[in-house]
């Protein structure tokens, strides 16, 4: 596809929103701080939502239990980071990153493994039945939350940032939190890996094709259910990674944190166009920016600002910013 064929309009929404609020915020340094915070939040939400949008696109499965993988990832990271206190307490940024990296890997592995079981025992019996999917996946999430309470206890657990990731980098008068820069970098890395996989590998082609027309992919001789299990596991692992990032962002974790983020994720995948990874990125960035801007400008409307954003987008494009063809 050449650049002229690409639909640039949704992509322009992100800078348009950022520039639109600049006069209302007034101070460029405050604006920059809020914008980086919004982009960081958006990137974390994207990491969590990217798997869910593919799960819906591929198999038409409404997984309202996605939040449990977020919470599990976050709790696993409290354990792993707790065991690496010497590393997280170090002033050396590299030692901090070396501690965070295995925490992310273990969280992804555990969440991915739970995803495998979740698909087998909770999702598979209700393929093609949306109402049952909603009920049973929500039930699965509640069970998951209770199991987390059994293992880690019901109380909120602090997840302090490693020493080297605390504080801010000064850019003129703007203070940019170091951790938010890390979140943007991790989000961009996840997006790059996903985009490369989806556009440059045959498995990625199959996923994109399956999102558009499952039946035809099967008619070409591919077992889409196996592909779906793989995507579900990867999506769960990414939610686990997102849980680590979100937990560090909030600096605490609770068993209900996944359920609290669930609403945001669904807003993101609806804005993006169900099944579209690129759309999920745009949706997540918009949601992150909107939450931060309204939190600063109009705190009273911050709670429903993202719903209003979704409504506005759907009035413009009822299928989301990048609708998936053939659906």
């Amino acid at each position, binding site marked *: *596809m050449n650049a002229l*064929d690409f639909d640039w309009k949704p992509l322009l929404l992100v800078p348009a929103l950022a520039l639109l609020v600049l006069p209302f915020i007034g101070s460029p340094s405050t604006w920059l701080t809020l914008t980086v915070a919004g982009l960081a939040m958006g990137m974390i939400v994207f990491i969590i939502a990217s798997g869910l949008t593919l799960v819906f696109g591929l198999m038409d499965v409404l997984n309202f239990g996605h939040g449990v993988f977020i919470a599990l990832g976050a709790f696993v990271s409290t354990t792993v980071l707790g065991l690496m206190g010497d590393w997280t307490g170090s002033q050396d940024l590299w030692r901090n990153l070396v501690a965070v990296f295995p925490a992310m890997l273990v969280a992804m592995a555990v969440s991915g493994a739970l995803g495998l079981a979740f698909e087998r025992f909770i999702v598979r019996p209700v393929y093609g039945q949306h109402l049952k999917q909603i009920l049973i996946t929500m039930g699965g999430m509640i069970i998951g939350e209770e199991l987390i309470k059994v293992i880690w206890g019901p109380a909120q657990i602090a997840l302090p940032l490693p020493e080297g990731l605390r504080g801010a980098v000064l850019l003129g008068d703007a203070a940019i939190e170091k951790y938010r820069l890390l979140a943007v970098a991790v989000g961009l890395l996840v997006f790059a890996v996903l985009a490369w996989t989806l556009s440059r590998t*045959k498995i990625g*082609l*199959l996923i*994109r*094709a399956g999102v*558009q*027309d499952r*039946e*035809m*992919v*099967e*008619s*070409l*001789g*591919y*077992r*889409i259910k196996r592909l779906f299990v793989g995507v579900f596991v990867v999506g769960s692992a990414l939610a686990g990674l997102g849980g680590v990032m979100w937990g560090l962002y909030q600096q605490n974790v609770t068993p209900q944190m996944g359920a609290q983020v669930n609403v945001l994720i669904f807003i993101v995948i609806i804005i993006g166009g169900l099944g579209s990874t690129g759309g999920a990125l745009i949706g997540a960035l918009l949601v992150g920016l909107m939450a931060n801007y309204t939190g600063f400008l109009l705190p009273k409307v911050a709670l429903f600002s993202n719903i209003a954003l979704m409504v506005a987008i759907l009035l413009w494009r009822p299928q989301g910013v990048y609708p*998936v*063809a*053939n659906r």
Partner: protein
Amino acid sequence: MSDILLQLEGVHTHIGAYHILHGVDLVVPKGQLTMLLGRNGAGKTTTLRTIMGLWQASQGRLTFGGQDITALNTPQIAGLNIAYVPENMGIFSDLSVKENMLLAARQAKHAGQMDEARLKWIFSLFPAVEKFWNHPAGKLSGGQKQMLAVARAIVEPRELLIVDEPSKGLAPAIINNMIDAFAQLKATGTTILLVEQNINFAKRLGDQVAVMDNGRVVHAGTMQALADDEQLQQSLLGLAI
């Protein structure tokens, strides 16, 4: 008659509460082009979808090359070297023409691994496929999409090619192009099962013909015999070829 490649014996298909096929008996001889004709709603598309396992036969038996395929699922059936072009063409609009072709080339992991000589032959049949190789398939015209759908089905040699109404909605010039392409495919010995409403298309290509009505095959024989018998055409199809 040549060896039988595909055979349906007393096949019934239910879709939800609806009983669509009422005991279909159909024989597709190897190396020939069999036309499946019939009025709208006769059960032609359902028959093709049942063969592909997209809808499971509730009764009866399907065999392919002597192997019972009644209980196989769609990927297993496609894995027996059967290619299927559905009525809606099944083009992946968000993918490029190249990516559509690559997906059908099961042996190739990337475009460079596709059989170059076969691609050249396909390009000679359908020049639009080469011309729009890197373009999004969704941007193609209806005729070009149909060419891509057939080209994709034959990107690797197949034992059986099943095509549902390839001429539907196409301009006469494109239909002639399509007829030439199927004639060349026939010449390679590929077995083809074609559902068609365009009777001239059927007459020019068909070796064998089966006519369906109310979920059953009500006539089977050679295309030539049907073309020569106006009374039979009138009684089966309500028209003369």
